[in-house]
Protein backbone atom coordinates (compact mmCIF):
# COMPACT_ATOMS: atom_id res chain seq x y z
CA UNK A 1 0.00 0.00 0.00
CA UNK A 2 2.81 2.38 0.96
CA UNK A 3 4.51 1.64 -2.36
CA UNK A 4 1.34 2.50 -4.30
CA UNK A 5 0.99 5.81 -2.44
CA UNK A 6 4.69 6.51 -3.00
CA UNK A 7 4.30 5.86 -6.74
CA UNK A 8 1.40 8.30 -7.15
CA UNK A 9 3.14 10.84 -4.91
CA UNK A 10 6.33 10.61 -6.96
CA UNK A 11 4.39 11.27 -10.16
CA UNK A 12 3.44 14.71 -8.87
CA UNK A 13 6.99 15.57 -7.88
CA UNK A 14 8.03 19.16 -8.61
CA UNK A 15 11.40 20.48 -9.74
CA UNK A 16 13.29 23.41 -8.17
CA UNK A 17 11.51 25.84 -10.52
CA UNK A 18 8.11 24.56 -9.38
CA UNK A 19 7.36 22.71 -12.60
CA UNK A 20 6.26 19.09 -12.53
CA UNK A 21 9.07 16.60 -13.05
CA UNK A 22 6.67 14.07 -14.54
CA UNK A 23 4.37 14.95 -17.40
CA UNK A 24 0.68 14.54 -16.43
CA UNK A 25 1.91 14.21 -12.83
CA UNK A 26 -1.06 15.88 -11.18
CA UNK A 27 -3.50 13.96 -13.33
CA UNK A 28 -1.86 10.70 -12.29
CA UNK A 29 -2.08 11.74 -8.65
CA UNK A 30 -5.77 12.45 -9.28
CA UNK A 31 -6.06 8.91 -10.65
CA UNK A 32 -4.56 7.67 -7.40
CA UNK A 33 -7.16 9.63 -5.41
CA UNK A 34 -9.86 8.26 -7.73
CA UNK A 35 -8.80 4.65 -7.27
CA UNK A 36 -8.43 5.01 -3.51
CA UNK A 37 -11.59 7.08 -3.20
CA UNK A 38 -13.83 4.73 -5.15
CA UNK A 39 -12.47 1.68 -3.32
CA UNK A 40 -13.00 3.52 -0.03
CA UNK A 41 -16.55 4.61 -0.83
CA UNK A 42 -17.63 1.21 -2.16
CA UNK A 43 -15.87 -0.59 0.68
CA UNK A 44 -17.43 1.56 3.40
CA UNK A 45 -20.91 1.38 1.92
CA UNK A 46 -20.52 -2.39 1.39
CA UNK A 47 -19.79 -2.66 5.10
CA UNK A 48 -22.94 -0.66 5.88
CA UNK A 49 -24.85 -2.98 3.53
CA UNK A 50 -23.67 -6.04 5.45
CA UNK A 51 -24.59 -4.39 8.76
CA UNK A 52 -28.10 -3.50 7.52
CA UNK A 53 -28.66 -7.02 6.15
CA UNK A 54 -27.54 -8.56 9.46
CA UNK A 55 -29.71 -6.10 11.40
CA UNK A 56 -32.70 -6.92 9.19
CA UNK A 57 -32.22 -10.64 9.80
CA UNK A 58 -31.97 -10.11 13.54
CA UNK A 59 -35.10 -7.94 13.39
CA UNK A 60 -36.98 -10.65 11.48
CA UNK A 61 -36.20 -13.21 14.17
CA UNK A 62 -36.85 -10.91 17.10
CA UNK A 63 -40.52 -10.04 17.71
CA UNK A 64 -40.74 -6.21 17.74
Amino acid at each position, binding site marked *: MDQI*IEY*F*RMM*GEKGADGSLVHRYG*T*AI*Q*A*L*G*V*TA*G*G*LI*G*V*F*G*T*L*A*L*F*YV*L*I*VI*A*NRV*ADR*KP*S
Partner: protein
Amino acid sequence: MNDLFIGFTSVGWQHFVMYAIGLTLIWLAIKKEYEPMLLLPIGFGAILVNLPLSAVLSYGGEPGWLSVLYSAGIKTELFPLLIFVAVGAMIDFGPLFKNPIMIFFGAAAQFGIFATMIVATFLGFNLKEAASIGIIGAADGPTSIFVASLFAPKYLAAISVAAYSYMSLVPIIQPPVIKILTTKEERRIHMEYHESSVPKWLKVMFPIVVTMVAGFIAPISVPLIGSLMFGNLIRESGVMERISQTAQNELANIVTLLLGITIGSSMTAANFIEWKTILIMAMGLVAFVFDTAGGLLFAKLVNLFLPKGKKLNPMIGACGISAFPMSARIIQKMASDEERGNIILMQAIGSNVSGQIGSIIAGGMVLALVPLLMK
Protein backbone atom coordinates in the same frame (compact mmCIF):
# COMPACT_ATOMS: atom_id res chain seq x y z
CA MET B 1 -13.97 66.80 -3.73
CA ASN B 2 -12.69 63.44 -4.83
CA ASP B 3 -13.65 61.99 -1.44
CA LEU B 4 -17.20 63.21 -1.93
CA PHE B 5 -17.63 61.06 -5.01
CA ILE B 6 -15.54 58.14 -3.80
CA GLY B 7 -18.58 55.87 -4.10
CA PHE B 8 -18.63 56.49 -7.84
CA THR B 9 -14.90 56.62 -8.48
CA SER B 10 -13.94 53.47 -6.58
CA VAL B 11 -15.85 50.99 -8.72
CA GLY B 12 -14.89 49.48 -12.04
CA TRP B 13 -16.66 47.43 -14.72
CA GLN B 14 -15.92 44.26 -12.74
CA HIS B 15 -18.17 45.48 -9.93
CA PHE B 16 -21.01 46.03 -12.37
CA VAL B 17 -20.55 42.48 -13.66
CA MET B 18 -20.87 41.28 -10.05
CA TYR B 19 -24.07 43.32 -9.55
CA ALA B 20 -25.44 41.65 -12.67
CA ILE B 21 -24.45 38.21 -11.33
CA GLY B 22 -26.02 39.01 -7.95
CA LEU B 23 -29.22 40.20 -9.60
CA THR B 24 -29.32 37.10 -11.80
CA LEU B 25 -29.05 34.84 -8.74
CA ILE B 26 -31.84 36.78 -7.02
CA TRP B 27 -33.95 36.54 -10.19
CA LEU B 28 -33.35 32.76 -10.41
CA ALA B 29 -34.35 32.43 -6.75
CA ILE B 30 -37.54 34.47 -7.01
CA LYS B 31 -38.74 33.91 -10.55
CA LYS B 32 -37.56 30.34 -11.17
CA GLU B 33 -37.54 29.24 -7.51
CA TYR B 34 -34.09 27.62 -7.96
CA GLU B 35 -32.86 26.94 -4.39
CA PRO B 36 -34.28 30.32 -3.26
CA MET B 37 -33.18 29.83 0.35
CA LEU B 38 -29.57 29.95 -0.80
CA LEU B 39 -29.40 31.71 -4.14
CA LEU B 40 -31.24 34.79 -2.86
CA PRO B 41 -28.88 35.49 0.07
CA ILE B 42 -25.86 34.55 -2.08
CA GLY B 43 -27.01 37.00 -4.77
CA PHE B 44 -27.62 39.79 -2.29
CA GLY B 45 -24.31 39.08 -0.56
CA ALA B 46 -22.56 39.37 -3.94
CA ILE B 47 -24.06 42.84 -4.41
CA LEU B 48 -23.28 43.95 -0.84
CA VAL B 49 -19.65 42.97 -0.97
CA ASN B 50 -19.01 44.72 -4.29
CA LEU B 51 -20.51 48.06 -3.32
CA PRO B 52 -17.94 50.87 -3.06
CA LEU B 53 -15.40 50.39 -0.25
CA SER B 54 -16.92 47.02 0.72
CA ALA B 55 -17.89 48.30 4.15
CA VAL B 56 -19.52 44.97 4.96
CA LEU B 57 -16.09 43.36 4.82
CA SER B 58 -14.08 45.94 6.73
CA TYR B 59 -14.75 49.39 8.05
CA GLY B 60 -12.31 51.71 9.77
CA GLY B 61 -9.74 48.96 10.09
CA GLU B 62 -12.21 46.66 11.85
CA PRO B 63 -13.71 43.57 10.23
CA GLY B 64 -17.21 44.12 8.86
CA TRP B 65 -20.16 41.93 9.83
CA LEU B 66 -19.82 39.62 6.83
CA SER B 67 -16.10 39.13 7.57
CA VAL B 68 -17.01 38.21 11.13
CA LEU B 69 -19.56 35.69 9.84
CA TYR B 70 -17.04 34.30 7.34
CA SER B 71 -14.38 33.83 10.01
CA ALA B 72 -16.82 32.30 12.46
CA GLY B 73 -18.87 30.13 10.15
CA ILE B 74 -16.93 29.20 7.04
CA LYS B 75 -13.27 29.24 8.08
CA THR B 76 -14.17 27.13 11.09
CA GLU B 77 -16.47 24.95 8.88
CA LEU B 78 -19.20 25.49 11.47
CA PHE B 79 -22.05 26.49 9.12
CA PRO B 80 -21.86 23.46 6.80
CA LEU B 81 -21.68 21.15 9.81
CA LEU B 82 -24.72 22.74 11.44
CA ILE B 83 -26.57 22.35 8.15
CA PHE B 84 -25.70 18.66 8.30
CA VAL B 85 -27.25 18.35 11.76
CA ALA B 86 -30.43 19.82 10.28
CA VAL B 87 -30.30 17.59 7.18
CA GLY B 88 -29.72 14.52 9.37
CA ALA B 89 -32.83 15.37 11.35
CA MET B 90 -34.80 15.50 8.10
CA ILE B 91 -33.67 12.14 6.66
CA ASP B 92 -35.58 8.92 7.09
CA PHE B 93 -33.31 5.98 6.30
CA GLY B 94 -36.30 3.60 6.41
CA PRO B 95 -36.51 3.07 2.62
CA LEU B 96 -32.81 2.15 2.62
CA PHE B 97 -33.25 -0.44 5.39
CA LYS B 98 -35.97 -2.10 3.33
CA ASN B 99 -33.83 -2.13 0.15
CA PRO B 100 -30.23 -2.21 1.42
CA ILE B 101 -28.90 -3.07 -2.05
CA MET B 102 -29.68 0.55 -2.99
CA ILE B 103 -26.69 1.64 -0.91
CA PHE B 104 -24.35 0.70 -3.75
CA PHE B 105 -25.90 3.29 -6.04
CA GLY B 106 -24.94 5.89 -3.45
CA ALA B 107 -21.36 4.79 -4.08
CA ALA B 108 -21.51 4.46 -7.87
CA ALA B 109 -23.02 7.91 -8.34
CA GLN B 110 -19.97 9.49 -6.70
CA PHE B 111 -18.07 8.65 -9.89
CA GLY B 112 -18.62 12.21 -11.11
CA ILE B 113 -16.53 13.61 -8.25
CA PHE B 114 -13.47 11.66 -9.27
CA ALA B 115 -13.92 11.92 -13.04
CA THR B 116 -14.30 15.69 -12.77
CA MET B 117 -11.24 15.92 -10.55
CA ILE B 118 -9.15 14.20 -13.23
CA VAL B 119 -10.55 16.50 -15.95
CA ALA B 120 -9.82 19.55 -13.76
CA THR B 121 -6.16 18.57 -13.40
CA PHE B 122 -5.88 18.50 -17.21
CA LEU B 123 -7.26 22.05 -17.23
CA GLY B 124 -4.36 23.26 -15.08
CA PHE B 125 -5.80 23.14 -11.55
CA ASN B 126 -3.57 21.70 -8.84
CA LEU B 127 -4.66 18.56 -7.01
CA LYS B 128 -6.32 20.34 -4.07
CA GLU B 129 -8.21 22.73 -6.35
CA ALA B 130 -9.21 19.89 -8.67
CA ALA B 131 -10.47 17.84 -5.72
CA SER B 132 -12.54 20.79 -4.50
CA ILE B 133 -14.03 21.25 -7.96
CA GLY B 134 -14.75 17.53 -8.23
CA ILE B 135 -16.63 17.65 -4.93
CA ILE B 136 -19.29 19.77 -6.63
CA GLY B 137 -20.33 16.33 -7.89
CA ALA B 138 -21.20 15.35 -4.33
CA ALA B 139 -24.42 17.27 -5.14
CA ASP B 140 -24.24 18.26 -1.55
CA GLY B 141 -23.66 21.92 -0.71
CA PRO B 142 -22.24 21.52 2.82
CA THR B 143 -19.71 18.87 1.71
CA SER B 144 -18.60 21.10 -1.19
CA ILE B 145 -18.19 24.07 1.15
CA PHE B 146 -16.37 21.97 3.75
CA VAL B 147 -13.82 20.59 1.27
CA ALA B 148 -13.37 23.86 -0.65
CA SER B 149 -12.85 25.89 2.53
CA LEU B 150 -9.99 23.53 3.43
CA PHE B 151 -8.45 22.92 0.01
CA ALA B 152 -9.30 25.90 -2.20
CA PRO B 153 -10.69 28.87 -0.21
CA LYS B 154 -9.94 31.08 -3.21
CA TYR B 155 -12.56 29.27 -5.25
CA LEU B 156 -15.05 28.75 -2.42
CA ALA B 157 -17.56 31.20 -3.87
CA ALA B 158 -17.50 29.77 -7.38
CA ILE B 159 -17.67 26.18 -6.08
CA SER B 160 -20.57 26.94 -3.72
CA VAL B 161 -22.54 28.79 -6.37
CA ALA B 162 -21.94 25.96 -8.85
CA ALA B 163 -22.94 23.30 -6.30
CA TYR B 164 -26.19 24.98 -5.31
CA SER B 165 -27.05 26.10 -8.84
CA TYR B 166 -26.68 22.65 -10.34
CA MET B 167 -28.51 21.05 -7.41
CA SER B 168 -31.47 23.22 -8.26
CA LEU B 169 -31.04 22.32 -11.94
CA VAL B 170 -31.15 18.56 -11.32
CA PRO B 171 -34.63 18.37 -12.96
CA ILE B 172 -33.08 19.80 -16.11
CA ILE B 173 -29.70 18.00 -16.01
CA GLN B 174 -30.70 14.41 -15.18
CA PRO B 175 -33.56 13.56 -17.60
CA PRO B 176 -31.61 14.04 -20.86
CA VAL B 177 -28.62 12.05 -19.54
CA ILE B 178 -30.94 9.25 -18.43
CA LYS B 179 -32.78 9.23 -21.75
CA ILE B 180 -29.53 9.00 -23.71
CA LEU B 181 -28.23 6.08 -21.63
CA THR B 182 -31.41 3.99 -21.28
CA THR B 183 -33.99 2.47 -23.57
CA LYS B 184 -37.73 2.98 -23.22
CA GLU B 185 -38.06 -0.65 -22.09
CA GLU B 186 -35.51 -0.13 -19.34
CA ARG B 187 -37.30 2.96 -18.08
CA ARG B 188 -40.53 0.95 -17.92
CA ILE B 189 -39.15 -1.77 -15.66
CA HIS B 190 -41.34 -2.29 -12.59
CA MET B 191 -39.81 -3.03 -9.23
CA GLU B 192 -41.58 -4.81 -6.40
CA TYR B 193 -41.77 -3.12 -3.06
CA HIS B 194 -42.84 -4.88 0.12
CA GLU B 195 -44.09 -2.65 2.89
CA SER B 196 -42.63 -3.70 6.22
CA SER B 197 -41.90 -1.87 9.42
CA VAL B 198 -38.34 -1.10 10.48
CA PRO B 199 -37.69 -1.76 14.18
CA LYS B 200 -36.86 1.32 16.22
CA TRP B 201 -33.63 -0.13 17.58
CA LEU B 202 -32.30 -0.45 14.03
CA LYS B 203 -33.12 3.18 13.26
CA VAL B 204 -31.42 4.28 16.51
CA MET B 205 -28.35 2.09 16.11
CA PHE B 206 -27.76 3.01 12.47
CA PRO B 207 -26.48 6.59 12.98
CA ILE B 208 -24.27 5.49 15.88
CA VAL B 209 -22.73 2.54 14.04
CA VAL B 210 -22.26 4.47 10.78
CA THR B 211 -20.45 7.27 12.61
CA MET B 212 -18.18 4.83 14.40
CA VAL B 213 -17.39 2.80 11.29
CA ALA B 214 -16.71 5.96 9.25
CA GLY B 215 -14.55 7.20 12.12
CA PHE B 216 -12.32 4.15 11.91
CA ILE B 217 -12.18 3.98 8.10
CA ALA B 218 -11.88 7.71 7.27
CA PRO B 219 -11.35 9.64 10.53
CA ILE B 220 -11.26 12.94 8.65
CA SER B 221 -14.89 12.42 7.57
CA VAL B 222 -16.12 12.34 11.18
CA PRO B 223 -17.11 16.03 11.40
CA LEU B 224 -19.28 15.59 8.28
CA ILE B 225 -20.79 12.17 8.93
CA GLY B 226 -20.93 12.75 12.68
CA SER B 227 -23.01 15.90 12.39
CA LEU B 228 -25.37 14.29 9.83
CA MET B 229 -25.82 11.23 12.00
CA PHE B 230 -26.20 13.29 15.17
CA GLY B 231 -29.15 15.03 13.54
CA ASN B 232 -30.55 11.65 12.50
CA LEU B 233 -30.13 10.22 16.00
CA ILE B 234 -32.06 13.17 17.43
CA ARG B 235 -34.85 12.34 14.98
CA GLU B 236 -34.93 8.60 15.52
CA SER B 237 -34.44 8.60 19.28
CA GLY B 238 -38.10 9.49 19.68
CA VAL B 239 -37.40 11.34 22.92
CA MET B 240 -36.25 14.65 21.42
CA GLU B 241 -39.17 15.53 19.20
CA ARG B 242 -39.05 19.23 20.03
CA ILE B 243 -35.29 19.42 19.39
CA SER B 244 -35.69 17.39 16.20
CA GLN B 245 -38.30 19.85 14.93
CA THR B 246 -36.03 22.76 15.90
CA ALA B 247 -33.13 21.21 13.97
CA GLN B 248 -35.32 20.60 10.92
CA ASN B 249 -36.83 24.07 10.92
CA GLU B 250 -35.32 26.89 12.98
CA LEU B 251 -31.71 25.65 12.89
CA ALA B 252 -31.89 24.80 9.16
CA ASN B 253 -33.44 28.17 8.34
CA ILE B 254 -31.10 30.33 10.41
CA VAL B 255 -27.90 28.60 9.32
CA THR B 256 -29.00 28.51 5.67
CA LEU B 257 -29.62 32.25 5.80
CA LEU B 258 -26.22 32.97 7.35
CA LEU B 259 -24.45 30.48 5.09
CA GLY B 260 -25.96 32.00 1.97
CA ILE B 261 -25.07 35.59 2.67
CA THR B 262 -21.62 34.62 3.91
CA ILE B 263 -20.89 32.67 0.72
CA GLY B 264 -22.13 35.70 -1.21
CA SER B 265 -19.66 37.84 0.72
CA SER B 266 -16.79 35.82 -0.73
CA MET B 267 -17.87 36.79 -4.24
CA THR B 268 -15.72 39.89 -4.55
CA ALA B 269 -15.02 41.01 -8.10
CA ALA B 270 -11.29 40.37 -7.61
CA ASN B 271 -11.97 36.78 -6.51
CA PHE B 272 -14.78 35.91 -8.86
CA ILE B 273 -14.11 37.53 -12.20
CA GLU B 274 -11.55 35.30 -13.78
CA TRP B 275 -11.69 32.67 -16.45
CA LYS B 276 -11.23 29.90 -13.87
CA THR B 277 -14.67 30.73 -12.44
CA ILE B 278 -16.21 29.91 -15.81
CA LEU B 279 -14.20 26.68 -15.91
CA ILE B 280 -15.40 25.77 -12.41
CA MET B 281 -19.02 26.37 -13.40
CA ALA B 282 -18.53 24.17 -16.48
CA MET B 283 -16.82 21.47 -14.42
CA GLY B 284 -19.74 21.47 -12.00
CA LEU B 285 -22.06 20.55 -14.83
CA VAL B 286 -19.66 17.83 -15.97
CA ALA B 287 -19.65 16.44 -12.41
CA PHE B 288 -23.44 16.18 -12.25
CA VAL B 289 -23.59 14.52 -15.68
CA PHE B 290 -20.87 11.99 -14.73
CA ASP B 291 -22.61 11.29 -11.40
CA THR B 292 -25.88 10.53 -13.14
CA ALA B 293 -24.16 8.40 -15.77
CA GLY B 294 -22.06 6.57 -13.16
CA GLY B 295 -25.03 5.53 -11.04
CA LEU B 296 -27.13 4.61 -14.04
CA LEU B 297 -24.47 2.54 -15.78
CA PHE B 298 -23.74 0.74 -12.52
CA ALA B 299 -27.42 -0.23 -12.30
CA LYS B 300 -27.23 -1.54 -15.88
CA LEU B 301 -24.15 -3.53 -14.93
CA VAL B 302 -25.96 -5.06 -11.94
CA ASN B 303 -28.87 -5.95 -14.25
CA LEU B 304 -26.56 -8.14 -16.33
CA PHE B 305 -26.33 -10.52 -13.37
CA LEU B 306 -29.99 -10.46 -12.35
CA PRO B 307 -32.58 -12.93 -13.67
CA LYS B 308 -35.46 -11.73 -15.84
CA GLY B 309 -38.27 -10.41 -13.71
CA LYS B 310 -35.86 -9.28 -10.99
CA LYS B 311 -34.14 -6.57 -13.03
CA LEU B 312 -33.75 -3.09 -11.60
CA ASN B 313 -35.07 0.01 -13.27
CA PRO B 314 -31.68 1.57 -14.09
CA MET B 315 -33.01 5.06 -13.42
CA ILE B 316 -32.74 4.13 -9.72
CA GLY B 317 -28.96 4.33 -10.12
CA ALA B 318 -29.16 7.98 -11.13
CA CYS B 319 -30.77 8.76 -7.74
CA GLY B 320 -27.51 7.85 -6.07
CA ILE B 321 -26.48 11.47 -6.36
CA SER B 322 -27.16 13.19 -3.13
CA ALA B 323 -29.62 15.86 -4.33
CA PHE B 324 -32.26 14.72 -1.84
CA PRO B 325 -35.21 14.33 -2.38
CA MET B 326 -35.35 16.08 -5.73
CA SER B 327 -33.59 13.37 -7.69
CA ALA B 328 -35.92 10.63 -6.39
CA ARG B 329 -38.96 12.71 -7.34
CA ILE B 330 -37.66 13.25 -10.87
CA ILE B 331 -36.98 9.56 -11.38
CA GLN B 332 -40.48 8.70 -10.14
CA LYS B 333 -41.96 11.27 -12.53
CA MET B 334 -39.95 9.86 -15.43
CA ALA B 335 -41.09 6.32 -14.57
CA SER B 336 -44.74 7.44 -14.44
CA ASP B 337 -44.38 9.37 -17.68
CA GLU B 338 -43.07 6.24 -19.40
CA GLU B 339 -45.82 4.06 -17.98
CA ARG B 340 -48.69 5.16 -15.83
CA GLY B 341 -48.79 3.36 -12.50
CA ASN B 342 -45.09 2.47 -12.43
CA ILE B 343 -44.16 3.31 -8.85
CA ILE B 344 -40.46 3.18 -7.97
CA LEU B 345 -40.43 6.07 -5.50
CA MET B 346 -39.42 4.11 -2.40
CA GLN B 347 -36.50 2.43 -4.15
CA ALA B 348 -35.51 5.82 -5.57
CA ILE B 349 -35.56 7.37 -2.09
CA GLY B 350 -33.46 4.48 -0.76
CA SER B 351 -30.88 5.16 -3.45
CA ASN B 352 -31.12 8.91 -2.86
CA VAL B 353 -30.45 8.74 0.91
CA SER B 354 -27.55 6.39 0.17
CA GLY B 355 -26.19 9.18 -1.99
CA GLN B 356 -26.19 11.41 1.10
CA ILE B 357 -23.97 8.95 2.93
CA GLY B 358 -21.89 8.17 -0.16
CA SER B 359 -21.15 11.82 -0.90
CA ILE B 360 -19.93 12.42 2.65
CA ILE B 361 -17.75 9.31 2.62
CA ALA B 362 -16.38 10.42 -0.77
CA GLY B 363 -15.65 13.86 0.70
CA GLY B 364 -13.84 12.20 3.59
CA MET B 365 -11.83 10.02 1.21
CA VAL B 366 -10.78 13.05 -0.82
CA LEU B 367 -9.81 14.93 2.35
CA ALA B 368 -7.73 11.96 3.49
CA LEU B 369 -6.10 10.96 0.20
CA VAL B 370 -5.17 14.31 -1.36
CA PRO B 371 -2.78 15.44 1.42
CA LEU B 372 -1.33 11.94 1.51
CA LEU B 373 -0.34 12.17 -2.15
CA MET B 374 0.84 15.77 -1.92
CA LYS B 375 3.20 15.24 1.05
